[in-house]
């Protein structure tokens, strides 16, 4: 039985952190859920969307995170329970509204889930979202395992309703995308009626207009709420301690670092020497609880990922209480015991711990390590990331790259966020030269496109995906058109948010709940803005390159070139080969071809490999998806395609 509908209390399921959060929300009786897809957060909304019918939810993939937060807040203002999920970068996008929301307060329980990505496993930054809680004076919870992810998500709604403000639950990749046993509770049976009451006085936060003003009054109320939260957190079961009464070293940690630290203590066998205080309520910190534990020893280590958030806040508390608890020695990020960059793992915690406790540890015996140096031992080739076989982006970048070469004025492409961020790698022929936030490619291009006055004569291009177009490119494009910036925007329209698993976006005819939805036509939007628009199939390599060269040569204004072709992994395309491919070995000239092995050395589709013995190209029947593109690359016409009957 699916964990989403299973109502047997105490039954265990293997749940991904994100699924556990979704389940917790269902147990809390969430009514509305919104978000914008982003690894590692996407499965929360996806999971809730799956049961939107059965559980009578409204679930949407919003245009961007700020809109998502506003949609969720509206539900809260109407006294429903709502959840809004995003990855760490989304918090930056949503933060403008979040600041105002925190001041205004909420009505129905409202929870923001942010999933950080320490180590940037699937991000272009290592952003830290915990600071938003301190900056905006709202409560912060961090689950330390999968069971807690569910329990906390549920309790966060209750806390939000108790204090009438939004609550942040912060997860990380290794919680969100890891799985573990979770004991279920009961699904909520509460029905809520939506009504937005606004007739009371503006100073009354619950039934009056929802506003962040008058600021002085609201800010005072907000600070009273956060003081109350600190009291509530003193008693929270999410803060746990394991270890001796008077440990030699006290470790304070939160989130997945709890599991790493537990493991490290176990690996070193120092259970008798080390105490582990795991905090689940990390803003505001409960001062009395910390005072109690800080008093047990003089040596404190703080284990956390990204910025020293706990470390700094604990140090402030320790300084305030110095008279009673005495001077402490702190180990953590500031003294270099814990690395300041990248994600942690059990070994890094072991390393820090064994130094402080002067114990030895060897992950791998040297006798075993020596075997790697044996002369017969093979060198394992690096495995660079690349576009999937049959990916439309490979074809698109091929044409963009060739068009710029032909144009020969040192033109360049501003990149953006999605699978096509790999346009900067060899699989994208190193075509993109900038990479920042969602929509920044077009914004940067808009700026570059105005530099002719200062002598810049390079053609300026930008790329963006269809989902990114709606998320953040539109305002930048308006800016470029209005200021008559000379740029070409290539929209890589692959009909979905491929990177994160095909969530629908406003350009498609279906919404998150699978209902029919009016699609917004990117071409028409761009035309209405006043851009010149062309559309092509990127699998037509020659046509694409010619059109692009023509657009780049145009002197004035904004040109939009839409390259439309579905993602190779899209549900419609998976298992549907368009062409059977084969190499005509008589025609393939091998290394003598004179093309410098354009097919494999340059184009690099994983489906097309090189048979060294035969000195011929070869199709890998397992990997090739039969898109047919490589056949137009071979100058000797040795790559044959035949339509699948």
């Amino acid at each position, binding site marked *: 039985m699916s964990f989403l509908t299973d109502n047997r209390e105490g039954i265990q399921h293997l749940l991904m952190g994100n699924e556990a959060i979704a389940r917790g929300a269902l147990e809390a009786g969430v009514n509305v859920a919104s978000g914008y897809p982003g690894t590692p957060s996407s499965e929360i909304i996806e999971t809730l969307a799956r049961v939107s019918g059965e559980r009578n939810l409204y679930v949407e993939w919003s245009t961007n995170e700020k809109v998502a937060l506003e949609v969720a807040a509206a539900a809260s203002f109407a006294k429903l329970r709502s959840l809004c999920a995003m990855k760490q970068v989304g918090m930056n996008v949503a933060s403008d509204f979040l600041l105002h929301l925190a001041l205004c307060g909420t009505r129905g329980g409202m929870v923001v889930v942010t999933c950080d990505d320490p180590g940037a496993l699937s991000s272009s930054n290592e952003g830290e979202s915990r600071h938003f809680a301190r900056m905006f004076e709202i409560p912060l919870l961090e689950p330390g395992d999968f069971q807690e992810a569910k329990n906390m998500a549920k309790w966060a709604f209750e806390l939000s309703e108790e204090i009438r403000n939004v609550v942040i639950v912060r997860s990380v990749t290794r919680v969100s995308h890891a799985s573990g046993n979770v004991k279920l509770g009961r699904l909520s049976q509460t029905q809520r009626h939506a009504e937005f009451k606004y007739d009371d006085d503006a100073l009354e936060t619950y039934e009056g207009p929802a506003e962040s003003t008058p600021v002085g009054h609201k800010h005072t109320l907000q600070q009273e709420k956060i003081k109350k939260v600190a009291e509530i957190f003193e008693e929270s079961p999410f803060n746990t301690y394991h270890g001796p009464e008077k440990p030699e070293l006290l470790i304070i940690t939160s989130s997945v670092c709890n599991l790493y630290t537990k493991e490290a203590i176990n690996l070193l066998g120092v259970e008798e020497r080390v105490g582990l205080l795991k905090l689940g309520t990390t803003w505001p910190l409960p001062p009395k609880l910390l005072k109690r534990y800080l008093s047990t020893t003089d040596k404190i280590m703080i284990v956390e990922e990204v910025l020293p958030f706990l470390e700094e806040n604990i140090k402030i508390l320790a300084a305030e209480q110095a008279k009673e608890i005495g001077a402490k020695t702190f180990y953590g990020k500031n003294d270099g015991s814990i690395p300041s960059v990248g994600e942690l793992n059990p070994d890094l915690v072991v390393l820090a711990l064994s130094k402080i406790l002067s114990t030895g540890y060897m992950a791998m015996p040297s006798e075993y390590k020596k075997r790697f140096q044996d002369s017969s031992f093979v060198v394992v080739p690096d495995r660079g990331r690349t*576009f999937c076989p049959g990916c439309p982006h490979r074809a698109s970048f091929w044409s963009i790259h060739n068009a710029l070469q032909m144009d020969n004025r040192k033109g360049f492409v501003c990149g953006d966020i999605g699978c096509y961020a790999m346009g900067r790698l060899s699989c994208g022929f190193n075509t993109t030269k900038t990479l920042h936030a969602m929509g920044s490619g077009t914004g940067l291009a808009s700026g570059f496109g105005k530099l002719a006055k200062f002598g810049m004569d390079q053609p300026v291009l930008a790329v963006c995906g269809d989902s990114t177009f709606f998320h953040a490119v539109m305002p930048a494009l308006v800016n470029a058109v209005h200021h008559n910036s000379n740029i070409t925007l290539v929209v890589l329209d692959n009909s979905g948010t491929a990177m994160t698993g095909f969530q629908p976006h406003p350009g498609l005819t279906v919404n998150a709940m699978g209902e029919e939805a009016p699609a917004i036509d990117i071409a028409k939007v761009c035309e209405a803005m006043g851009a010149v628009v062309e559309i092509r199939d990127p699998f037509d390599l020659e046509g694409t390159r010619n059109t692009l060269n023509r657009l780049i040569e145009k002197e004035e204004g904004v040109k939009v070139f839409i390259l439309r072709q579905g993602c190779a992994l899209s549900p419609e395309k998976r298992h549907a080969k368009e062409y059977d491919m084969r190499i005509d070995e008589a025609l393939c000239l091998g290394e003598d071809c004179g093309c410098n092995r354009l097919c494999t050395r340059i184009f690099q589709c994983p489906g097309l490999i090189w048979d060294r013995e035969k000195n011929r190209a070869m199709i890998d029947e397992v990997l090739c998806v039969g898109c047919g593109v490589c056949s137009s690359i071979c100058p000797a016409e040795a790559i044959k395609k035949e339509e699948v009957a």
Partner: protein
Amino acid sequence: MGKTQLSKDPYNMVVTGVGGQGNVMASRVLSNMLIRNGYYVTVGETFGASQRGGSVMSHIRVSAQSVWSPQIPKGRADLIVSLEPVEAIRVLEIYGNQKVKTLTNTRPIYPVGVISGELDYPSIEEIKASVKNLSPTAWFIDATDQAIKLGNPVLGNIIMIGAMSGMGELPLYREDFKEVILDSLPEGNLNVNLKAFDIGASMLRKQDGAVFDVS
């Protein structure tokens, strides 16, 4: 049928391969089979960007006690299951030890650097020699080729899961496999999946001794 006890607690398993091979699917099926036998199972995965053609790993930890870290400590794998041959070595170099067991699918997927000619891909004989050097119990099977015979290379992962069950190392039973597939796939696919599972199981059951090669 007698139930297999864990030879170690937690029992640490790495399932590795190349993005797009179905690593996550394989680890999900395995973990769901294990949890049906009452164990705590913790799984750590790589998702998203790293899945596009890069090396991927799932860490699966099985315990009668509790959940563990979703990342296995270095040098602490008990079993490495590799859907692609060189990936086995890549993982052994980090998580291997004198006792580690390995199960390797012998079908290579060439990295882009190899396709372009900048890097070399070792021969399957060289790979086998290195794996055996690092892993005293090493199984090799041609799961993908068998799966192609069944009509779909993706079934290679199921053959690998069958093989793991045939190993007898872990409580991985055919009945549980059936239930898990029924839960997660439309009914129509059950038979071919069971067939793939049985092929894998019999490939390993046939073998005894320390180094097995049925590729």
